[in-house]
């Protein structure tokens, strides 16, 4: 039993080490990949623009729920006017980056992992190697950077639409005073709150994109292997996002 625990712990440590090594390999290749910025732009489009609909839709619903729940709760204390502050801080610091990361893992992360995994399974990566083209530089780094750039943008859009959704419920339906909704929000949301959101979404961007490209690149080159890589991408991204979220929140306190 203890032996099993030990072996699984040491296995996890080894995988973590490999993940970090892979990240270093990507970072070393970043300068050379930056020269081909057209590839990165394409990947920002794939990871970012193509995720916009789902991010905006989910942002709207999350904001609407926040508006409803926040209103119910704040009404008990007679402070419905603080609804703007509550939803904005909740979205910008917490829900925006976290839910965006989870949605990103499900939408763009799986697409990245399966795409790279299938390229491996169909020998496309080996073919690039044989054409003296480094697949890390040509395929992996642009996708990784695309994810890292797209994530904060998506999180910002998520928060924006979320606040709009909360306003829709709070101000338009529950008749919270529009002036106090916006002015309280502006007065109490500090730059440090926004910074926390930006830092979180950047770090989630790195972790989710890294996990996706790592799992895809190291996928066993079979149908089953690609499936496993895709599943692992979602599961690992979700766990690591929530774990890192706790760490960063604690650091900002």
């Amino acid at each position, binding site marked *: 039993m203890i032996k099993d625990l030990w072996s699984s712990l040491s296995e996890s440590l080894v995988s973590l080490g490999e993940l970090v090594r892979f990240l270093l390999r990507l970072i070393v290749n970043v300068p050379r990949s930056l020269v081909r910025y057209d590839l990165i732009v394409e990947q920002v489009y794939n990871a970012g623009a193509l995720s916009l609909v789902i991010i905006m839709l989910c942002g709207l619903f999350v904001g609407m729920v926040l508006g409803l729940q926040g209103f119910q709760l704040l009404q008990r204390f007679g402070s419905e006017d603080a609804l703007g502050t509550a939803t904005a801080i909740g979205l910008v610091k917490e829900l925006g980056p976290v839910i965006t990361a989870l949605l990103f893992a499900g939408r763009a992360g799986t697409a990245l992992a399966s795409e790279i995994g299938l390229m491996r399974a169909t020998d*496309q990566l080996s073919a690039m190697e044989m054409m003296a083209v480094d697949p890390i530089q040509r395929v992996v780094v642009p996708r990784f950077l695309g994810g890292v750039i797209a994530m904060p943008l998506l999180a910002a859009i998520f928060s924006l639409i979320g606040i709009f959704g909360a306003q829709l419920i709070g101000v338009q339906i529950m008749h919270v005073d529009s002036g106090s909704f916006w002015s309280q929000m502006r007065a109490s949301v500090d730059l440090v709150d926004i910074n926390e959101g930006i830092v979180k979404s950047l770090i989630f961007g790195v972790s989710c994109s890294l996990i996706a490209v790592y799992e895809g690149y190291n996928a066993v080159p079979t149908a089953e292997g690609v499936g496993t890589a895709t599943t692992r991408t979602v599961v690992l991204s979700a766990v690591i996002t929530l774990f890192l979220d706790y760490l960063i929140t604690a650091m900002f306190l």
Partner: protein
Amino acid sequence: MAWRRAAPTSPPWKAPPPEARETRESRADEARDLPPNTLNQTSAIVEIRGLNYSVRGRPIFSGLDMDIPRGRVTAVMGPSGTGKTTLLRLITRQVSADSGSVKVAGQQLDSLSRTQLYAMRQRMGMLFQNGALLTDLNVFENVAFPLREHTELPERLIRQLVLTKLQAVGLRGAIDLMPAELSGGMSRRVALARAIVMDPEILIYDEPFVGLDPISLGVILRLIRRLNDALGLTSIVVSHDVQEISTVADVVFLLSGGKVVAQGTPQQLHSYPSEIVRQFMGGLADGPVPFHYPAPDYFHELLDRSGDT
């Protein structure tokens, strides 16, 4: 060690003699009637010495020696699982040998840095079993891919080069198609155009005939021969289609048990005095290569009731 001195002094590129070219065009027998001693060190473009390679403790090659002659079509054959594809990966250093040496065009592969290795790979073209076309690019962009990655050529020149190569494989009309719209044979021909677009010295084919209909197969066979002779390439073909490869290869290596068990022209191999060669060339089910995977005693296993519930 004579083989070490050999290749660097030989010219970097030597086309086959014109008379051999003519005979090959007509597929006459003389072209393939090379006695084994013509595979000497001076004409070898790939030299393998004492190669050992194992996967998870299972030896694939043990002490493999091989000289692949320059300017010829060389077939590497052998039963499934003998490591033919692994050999190609070793020749291109997609994997590294445990011990022994692999020299390509006079350069020791293991001693090359990554940049040097990539420079070496630009002198090679490889056709993968399934073509391995990049699925997000169309036919034109697939063939243009190595040019765009390695050269700064103007678009007009890239277009001309790509069209020339596609014309050579008969698919100039398919430039706008995506890989998913191509048949297996067409994919392989596009991949072949891509493999020759950088004008390599060595062209490597990994099982080029698998799953092809007779027409596509004939097309690929003719292309292997024609490209080899017209472009002055060295072709290495891994295959176990004995009949097909016999019509096109100048030299055949038969691998089994991690070693070369026979080498020579296809004709020589057909009359080779060895049981394993006879089994392979004749397609016999049983022989030195057993039909059955190692298993416990058949009779006892049938009578075994331990699985009953």
